[in-house]
């Protein structure tokens, strides 16, 4: 019982920490990390709910299956989000550079 409570509260705190970081920080990678930590927190609560100490009965396998599903989903979403973040940065850098180049060109022509 104490184990379940301990781990579920840990999961909840991880969830809260992730949520806080997701809102406060602006770096895209940090946001994705935060979402991952949040997810881990939820999974921890779920697995802790199913926990039964050794010798006191069967473990409920359904939450485990749910967590497995969740982990796979979160990996795929993370991959997509990372690529999207890269792409955002690339394109916005590109726009920035183009603008800078244009400014340079206009300066040169003026000169």
């Amino acid at each position, binding site marked *: 019982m104490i184990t379940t409570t301990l781990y579920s509260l840990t999961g909840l705190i991880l969830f809260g920490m992730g949520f806080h970081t997701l809102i406060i920080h602006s770096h895209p990678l940090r946001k994705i990390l935060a979402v991952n930590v949040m997810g881990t927190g939820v999974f921890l609560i*779920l697995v802790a709910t199913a926990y039964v100490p050794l010798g006191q009965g069967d473990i409920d396998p359904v939450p485990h299956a749910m967590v497995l599903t969740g982990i796979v*989903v979160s990996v795929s979403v993370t991959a997509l989000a990372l690529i999207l973040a890269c792409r955002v940065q690339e394109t*916005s850098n590109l726009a920035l550079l183009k603008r800078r180049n244009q400014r340079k060109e206009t300066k040169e022509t003026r000169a």
Partner: protein
Amino acid sequence: MFQADTPAWIIAPVVLPLIAGLFCFLFKRRIFIIALAAALANFFVACFLIYQFLVFGSMRCYIGGWQPPLGITLRADGPALLMLLMTAVTGLAVTLYARGYFSCRIADSERAGRHQRQQRYFWPLWMLLLAGLNGLFLSGDIFNLYVTLELVAISAASLAALSGKPASQRASFRYLLISLLGSLTYLLGVVFLYRTCGVLDLDLLRNLSGNGAGVRAALALLTVGLLLKTALVPLHFWLPPAHANALAPVSVILSALVVKGSFYLLFRFWFELFSPIVTQAGLNFMGALGAVAIIWGAVQAIRQQRLKLMVAYSTVSQLGYLFVAFPLSRAVEGAQVWSIVIFIALTHACAKSAMFMVAGSIYLHLGHDRIRDLAGVRASLPVTVFAYGIAGVSLMGLPPSGAFIAKWMLLSSSLVSGQWWWALVIVAGSLLAMVYVFRVMSRFFVIPEGEPLKKPAALSPLLEWPALILALISLSLGLLAPWILHILSQGTVGLVRVFPGGLS
């Protein structure tokens, strides 16, 4: 083996688009044919399921033959089937429109490669999104709903980023993060529920859930998660940029279908699963948010300078109506609640798709969508302008559109129950809708000064007619009202209302 009353038909709307999506990804040629076949099949299956529902009653399909609590149940009841039909009809139109859209863009040789690539990835993503949505409407398992939500969210975010514009990618990134946050909050709610009840099946949960603090917390978490995805004010900030910067067919899908998915779940939870613990204060709170959304979204829509952004903010406003139905649901006849929401959702799906299609066609035609400079479109795209007008009329809720029926019910219940302030909001919202719809409409009627420099070629009928047909459907939904009410009253307990004139 497959009789008309086999429940296994329910899985077809999920499996067909899934397979189509796989093949669309695998193959290089004739992708459109595969997608069109799937959309058509999906439409016919939806019609068949409604027929089956009307003849044999509500269906349940236990996947793998495992009954709850262990297995996953798919169920087809009135609201689910109507949402399914809405998706099928809109989806078919979008499929046709997207074909026209991409052909038109590929024909412009300058960026043909990029457009071809967009088309290539559009089809599998769209098919998988369709499967996810259908799964969402049919699923009867709270964790399976999470998976379908993710399926929808990922494909929607990828679709939103498809246009390749930096703005669209930024918006899509934000959209992805928001829907992830929503999904995780939803999942936390599921954990709370599982902790309390130990089952995942919706029907079992309804009986078990009781009135504890855990269930309340679960409801709050599920609600917040789904509200994020539904973009109710004040959580709407991600929607306009994501919807307005996407490709036109994608905007249609996102605005007409994707937000409806999460709203549908929210509504199910509030009025079926958790109806015993829902308090009037909670309903009023949702209604207040909806009222703010109606007014705020409409005011923002009026202020926009670009057609697509205007349409996107109009989505924010229209979603508010769905939530104003919350406090009024219990006011007089609790029975009317699904019908109000379904009428709004169906009308909005058809009308908003038509509007985004129109915006896309105008963008293709003029090369911009600045509202100031729309003069002369009427002469070159009469069908499109007509579609815009009809869709706008439906959004304003003029008779005989479905939104009128919904508005009638909302007004009637708010006046009967003495909550006249909702009536004020509803009327104000439709007047504001009139302003933003006709602000654009009047520009169509301006006769341009001088001859246009070059006369752009006429657009393909695939770009014009689906919009018109959807707009006409949305306008005539009010006339189909008895039929829709019949479907709604067939299976849902408590919705049975005797129709005075008789329907048969």
